[in-house]
């Protein structure tokens, strides 16, 4: 641990950004470290940074989403897309998502939950299947 790092100690459980190739020992800046508290589930917390950091940067920092704006998340955006729906909601935006297919809709609604107020179909091309959540 570097000199001047005061808020961490050896043995702390942490989540960090360190882009290495599966090395057993990795080093990174103390700024890119967040401590996991004793009562927290490290597995859950570890799955947060990658997707949510990207979603927050895209919607909050770059797009500056305002309340009541419409946000559309395209398909094949993976965990970042799922996180973006949540981030859009916390920013009080109206979030939509493109489903790849009609059969995917129920699963999308079930998994991404929430206020499934309507789903609608735009004409082709390409067929945009969107669900308001």
């Amino acid at each position, binding site marked *: 641990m570097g000199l001047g790092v005061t808020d961490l100690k050896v043995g702390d459980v942490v989540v960090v*950004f360190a*882009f290495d190739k*599966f090395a057993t020992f990795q080093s990174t*800046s103390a*700024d*890119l470290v*967040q401590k996991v508290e004793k009562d927290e589930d490290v*597995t*859950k917390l*570890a*799955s*947060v*940074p*990658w*997707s*949510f*950091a*990207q*979603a*927050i*940067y*895209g*919607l909050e*920092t*770059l*797009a500056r*989403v305002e309340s009541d*704006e*419409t*946000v*559309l*998340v*395209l*398909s*094949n*955006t*993976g*965990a*970042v*897309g*799922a*996180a*973006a*729906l*949540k*981030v*859009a909601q*916390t920013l009080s*935006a109206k979030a939509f*998502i493109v489903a790849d297919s009609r059969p995917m809709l129920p*699963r*999308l609604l079930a*998994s*991404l*939950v929430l206020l499934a107020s309507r789903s*609608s179909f*735009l004409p082709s*091309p*390409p067929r*945009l299947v969107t669900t308001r959540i």
Partner: protein
Amino acid sequence: MTNGSGFDVILSGGYTGPALARESWRYTAPLGRFVDFGRKNVLKRAILDTIPLHQSASYLSYDILDLYGHKPQILAYLLKSAVTLFRKDPSVLVADAEVYNIADLESAVCSFSDSVLSSKKLIAYTASKKTLEVFPTAPTLRCSPDATYFMVGCLGGLGRSLTSWMTENGARHFAFLGRSGTDQEQARILVEGLQNAGIHCQVIRGDVASKEDVERAVASIPKEHPIRGVVQAAMVLRVYFLFYLQLISDN
């Protein structure tokens, strides 16, 4: 849905189909923002139809690895925000993560999906009875500082890159065998450059096709710096029309 005015913000990723991305970009509302994350393939992703730009729409692209490399302070803020968001409302995580032992890295990678519904894959560095197959690190060249490296030809551009690579890796003695020695200016510059860098160079005039010349050259190598490596890079390049080639080989 948007009363025909398009979406204010659209989020697209590196694996989103180009047709969908392109068409959605056209659905961007006036003053809208199209945000595109992930690695870009510059050859593939020509989605920038200019029509939305006339309505003040913006195309914004980013890659988290660039943030890590160039603006780590932003990434630090994002990490903090992400963790804070999760602590405020743990339900933002829609799927439980799947944890794989590091020994099952391969199946973890295979299970990866771009679907929004896919669960996050985590790799656990815990003890396991399984072994993980890894590629060995590519061997790196180590030249001995006490040995002579016998360079046949190597007094041109190829020699320049070879000798600098070999000296970076420890070589301190070179013996060059070439028909024109250091007559060529390029050869002279190469040898002088090496000598100025403290590298010992011996230039022997001779033809590698002559056994006598080669024996004489090898005999001239000092005993205390024996030959440990030979690079054969002698060649003659001549440009001919194809129909002359038969004549040349006949001669």
